[in-house]
Structure formats: structure tokens, C-alpha cells
């Protein structure tokens, strides 16, 4: 069976691409899928750090591309999930150290050994973006409800449309309290502006800083509020119809319960 090859991109930096890739990937692995995460951010490697695998890197993406090692030698298996592994980016090279066709070939090869290949795209729309998109068949665009992130997301959506990739949207770092007071764009607003199918709403939660500090995927923490959020995104990727949590119009009581069983 052919693996799903999904690039996770945003245009703007710092909106949560790497955190999203790590946590959606972990959620898929926890649901029993074989998952390979590829860090396409050559020169600014971080996916390994977010997942706590930074000490185990031997080979990297560029060395695979240059034929200096096999893909399976460069893949780092996550000990916490048998079915999750990552291909780290090179830290001391530039974005042009690899070509689009080399990248596409690596994605192709990874797809033979996985159910899901998630590609963590670098910020921007230049060479790094073109590489990351080269082998992908689908895209997830991550944005935050801010004007600059949305404008950049729109630009990326245009580029992905040119490549005829199906696109889904994750609205990250939503502050429901600010949406209610009219100080933040709502998820409906963002979807309307970008005209892209929604696949996840991730509320802003300091918990994510804590788990990335420790290098732990959030789905491993059974008490984590965001755990169900990423699990739901994974299920929607599988094709399940999972209702979205309504963060916008909750009462105080609803909010209290929502905090307990957020999803």
C-alpha cells in the first residue's frame, strides 16, 4: 500500500510547523501506523530536538542524498513508539545541498517503509520549500490567527494549488478568550479568508512548551490537555469524521469542562 506523503508547511516561521509535525506524527504512530518524519529544514535542524532524539543522530538527510549512507542507517527510531522514526536534516549545510529530485527520491524510498511520511518544511517559499514539497502528495498548512501568518499561509496555499496538492489547514495557538472578546480572528474567519478545508484547531497552551522542553510528544502524556487535539487530527487524516471542539461560544462552565476534557 502506498504511503501518504504529507508536507507540513506555513510560509511564515515560528507558527508551529515542527511541533505540529512531531505531535501529529507521534499521534499517528500511537494509533498503530508506521510513520517516518523528515526534517527538511537543512541548516536549522529542530525536529530531532522537539522529539528528544538529538543525541542519537548519526547520519542525516544530505548524506542520504549524496549516497554516503543508506536511508535506513540515517533513520532514527523513536524508542517510545516502535513505528515512529525520523530522518534528521543536516545542520551544517545549506538548503541548496540537495535538489528537488534527490528529495523526492528520498520521500519515495521512505514511503516504501511507512504508512505516513510527514515532511517538516522550512519557513519561506524558496529552495527549501520547493524541496520539501517535491515528493509530497498532500499538504497541511499551519497558521496562527494573526494577519502576517495568514497572509503568508495564503501565499503558500497559492503555491500548493499550482502543484495541485490537496490542502488541509491547522489553526494553531488559538486563544478562545480573545476570539470571544473580538481581539482575535476566529477559526471561521481564518477558514473563510484562506478557503481551505480545516483539519485541526489547536488552542494556545503553555503545556506544549513544557513537553518540547523535555523532548516528549504530547500524545504520550495521558494527562495532557492537547493530547486529544492531536489524536483527533490524526483520526481526521485517517479519514474519520471527528467533530471539532467549539472554542468560540463556550460558557464559563463549558470552559471549565472543556479544559478538563479538551479535544
Amino acid at each position, binding site marked *: 500500500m502506498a504511503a501518504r506523503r504529507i508536507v507540513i508547511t506555513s510560509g511564515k516561521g515560528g507558527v508551529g510547523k515542527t511541533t505540529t509535525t512531531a505531535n501529529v506524527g507521534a499521534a499517528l504512530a500511537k494509533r498503530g501506523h508506521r510513520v517516518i518524519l523528515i526534517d527538511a529544514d537543512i541548516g536549522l535542524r529542530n525536529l530531532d530536538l522537539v522529539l528528544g532524539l538529538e543525541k542519537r543522530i548519526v547520519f542525516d538527510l544530505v548524506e542520504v542524498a549524496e549516497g554516503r549512507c543508506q536511508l535506513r542507517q540515517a533513520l532514527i527510531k523513536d524508542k517510545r513508539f516502535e513505528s515512529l522514526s525520523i530522518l534528521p536534516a543536516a545542520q551544517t549545510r545549506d538548503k541548496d545541498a540537495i535538489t528537488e529530485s534527490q528529495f523526492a527520491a528520498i520521500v519515495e524510498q521512505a514511503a516504501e517503509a511507512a504508512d505516513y511520511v510527514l515532511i517538516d518544511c522550512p519557513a519561506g517559499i524558496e529552495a527549501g520549500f520547493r524541496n520539501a514539497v517535491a515528493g509530497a502528495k498532500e499538504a497541511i498548512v499551519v497558521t496562527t490567527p494573526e494577519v502576517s501568518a495568514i497572509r503568508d499561509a495564503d501565499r503558500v496555499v497559492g503555491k500548493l*494549488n499550482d502543484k495541485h496538492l490537496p490542502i488541509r489547514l491547522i489553526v494553531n495557538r488559538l486563544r478562545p478568550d480573545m476570539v470571544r472578546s473580538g481581539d482575535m480572528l476566529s477559526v471561521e474567519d481564518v477558514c473563510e479568508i484562506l478557503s481551505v478545508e480545516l483539519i485541526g484547531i489547536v488552542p494556545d497552551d503553555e503545556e506544549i512548551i513544557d513537553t518540547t522542553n523535555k523532548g516528549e510528544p504530547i500524545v504520550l502524556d495521558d494527562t495532557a490537555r492537547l493530547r486529544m487535539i492531536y489524536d483527533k487530527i490524526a483520526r481526521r487524516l485517517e479519514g474519520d469524521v471527528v467533530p471539532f471542539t467549539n472554542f468560540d461560544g463556550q460558557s464559563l462552565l463549558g470552559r471549565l469542562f472543556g479544559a478538563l476534557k479538551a479535544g
Partner: protein
Amino acid sequence: MIEWVKKMFGQTPSSSTAKERLRLVLMTDHLALAPEIIESMKRDLVDVISRYVEVDREKVEVNFEREDKALAMLANIPITAVARPNKPEEEPKAKAEPAPAAEPEPVAEAVAAEPQAKATTSTMSGPPPTRRRRKKKAGGSKPAPAH
């Protein structure tokens, strides 16, 4: 609490401002990214106007400017000659393909009154930014309440 105070003083929530600004900036971005569409629109525009007056095709300029709450299209179409309006009702129909009646007439009248170079302005507002090749997928855009 704060939101009630803001509402009492009639302040526009900043999210509405953000949405409006984004709508405009994305329209401008999309236009800038689609020069071939503007070219084709320019051709059509000049074709329609040339049914009534002679225009200098080489010097036609079409620009977009942001106004307060809308994007305005400014077209500068130099007119080189205007035929004497013998039968203003029938002449356009005789010259052109069927049914240009309603829309081009005001242009022709304005030009007839002052037959020098004239700018036509139209304003685009209201509908959200349009983009070719992009379709809004039903059902995906509105988060439904959770159980």
C-alpha cells in the same frame, strides 16, 4: 467585561479590522500574482469601449489602488476619435455583437459629453478575495460543536 466596555464605547473589535485588512491585502496580492488575468481584462475592457469610440490601445493603463475599504480599478483609456452620434439608440447595436445595451452605455455618454481622454473607475468590494483554481470545500470551513 472589557469587551462590554469596548462595545459601549462603539469601538470596532480589532479582529474585524484584521479581517478587513487581510481581505484587501490578499486581493492586492492575488492581482499582483495574476498579470495575465489583468491583461485579458484590459483587452476585454478596451474591446467594449472601442465599440463606441476609437481608443489608443497602446496607451491604455489599468491600475489598482487601495481606497479606504475597497480596492479600486483605475483605467486610463485615451480616446482618439468619437463619431457624431446620429442615432444614439441604434448605433451601438449595429456595430457590435448582441446585447451590450446596459453596461457600456454610461461610458459612451460620459465620453460624448467631454470627448477627451477619460478615466473609468470601478470599485471592487463586497465578495471575499477571488482566486482561480481554488474552491471552497463545503463542510470543511465551519467547526461543528463537540459532543
